[in-house]
């Protein structure tokens, strides 16, 4: 894990150097679907020393600049062998929801996000207790509970950050408060972990994710999304003007003033 963290750190430090020495290019804003993986699902078992494995993929798509409809799907399994019991639990899960950027994009090349979001989560999973032991004054009992199919629904509140490390490559983290809505009952073994929801030993489980994602730059545009009113200062036309270099020959404002008739709000699919 140290190696991974060290690599990420070096990547972060080097990323601003990547653009040095290059000629000034025309600035476009790129948008498109973003697909990523949740690194924390891989890192957690090594940190917690728990016998669990999981993976999760995430995807979002920009909508009106500041909204990102999001889909997350994954699979989690836990094989918990303890002194007094051996429990397994595994299954897929999915979440859908939306993230809302609450920060202001400073320029066309600024894609960093501070976001809040909502999710609805669903998991269909199986659990099995291979052995369960209990000892007291009268002796020891050992039993097992067969595999049972269960499902769970929950809601999540999300807060997080996403920063563009390299062009189209994003790194981010989020913290999540999870609100279980309904879980299939098992009379003897209430699942203490639910794929996608996490451990259920508290009423509001908290979780986090660390994501690396790649944006497929399907759309390029000169439009800078307006900041949401609740997010602080309002974007105005003058804000957008400030984002462009007046000495830049590619500045559409300059070309407009020269009568070239180029529309600075154009949007191009490719």
């Amino acid at each position, binding site marked *: 894990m140290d190696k991974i963290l060290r690599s990420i750190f070096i990547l972060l430090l080097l990323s601003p150097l990547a653009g040095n020495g290059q000629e000034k290019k025309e600035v476009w804003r790129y948008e498109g679907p973003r697909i990523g993986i949740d690194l924390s699902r891989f890192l957690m078992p090594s940190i917690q020393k728990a016998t669990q494995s999981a993976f999760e993929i995430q995807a979002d798509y920009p909508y009106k600049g500041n909204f990102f409809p999001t889909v997350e799907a994954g699979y989690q399994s836990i094989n918990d062998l303890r002194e007094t*019991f051996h429990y397994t639990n595994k299954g897929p899960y999915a979440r859908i929801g939306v993230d809302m950027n609450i920060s202001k994009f400073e320029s066309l090349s600024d894609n960093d996000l501070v976001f809040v979001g909502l999710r609805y989560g669903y998991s269909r999973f199986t659990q099995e207790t291979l052995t369960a032991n209990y000892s007291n004054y009268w002796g020891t009992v050992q039993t097992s509970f067969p595999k049972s199919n269960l499902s769970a629904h929950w809601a999540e509140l999300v807060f997080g950050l996403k920063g563009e490390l390299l062009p189209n490559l994003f790194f981010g983290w989020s913290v999540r408060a999870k609100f279980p809505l309904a879980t299939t009952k098992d009379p003897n073994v209430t699942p203490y972990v639910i794929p996608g929801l996490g451990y259920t030993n508290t009423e509001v489980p908290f979780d986090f994710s*660390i994501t690396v994602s790649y944006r497929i730059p399907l759309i390029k545009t000169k439009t800078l999304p307006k900041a949401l009113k609740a997010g602080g200062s309002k974007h105005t036309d003058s804000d957008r003007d400030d984002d462009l270099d007046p000495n830049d020959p590619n500045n559409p404002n300059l070309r407009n003033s020269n009568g070239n008739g180029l529309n600075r709000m154009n949007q191009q699919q490719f």
Partner: protein
Amino acid sequence: MLFRLTSLFFAVLLLLSCNNSSHCYESSETLLVTTFTGGSTLKIDSILVKGAAKTGIGDTLKFSRDSALTISAGLPLSLSADSTGFVVFANGRTSSFWLKHTMNLKLISQSCGFAPNYKLVATRHSSLIDSVSVSDPIVDPQSVERYATNGQNITIYLHLATP
């Protein structure tokens, strides 16, 4: 750059703050909370409780020489049989009682594991016990906590007076 470093800092912080606690902070011992009494005037001068057919020195479940009107004890129930018997030595007299019950092992939590949950369905006692009163037939890991200051699962009324 600042944004990225902040992001990385918090990500590392989140990772490091994760701690999978393996300590059990809940009650995982299931005991029948039992009150022994000789009535409102007769005190129990000494009492010793053992499981039926348990004769070893270490098999004593409760021993007290403190004179009191009521004495409480947490008694474990059988895990394999559907009834559990106890022998009571009180004020020099021996009596016994049996409890018929159902049992299910239930998961308490990941760190505490499983514990039995019982439901008392019938009682039986010897002639030197006046009666057995069941006030709460559910015996689970929370019973001891539930009746820590007041209440019990069952009350054993002993014949303490000289016959």
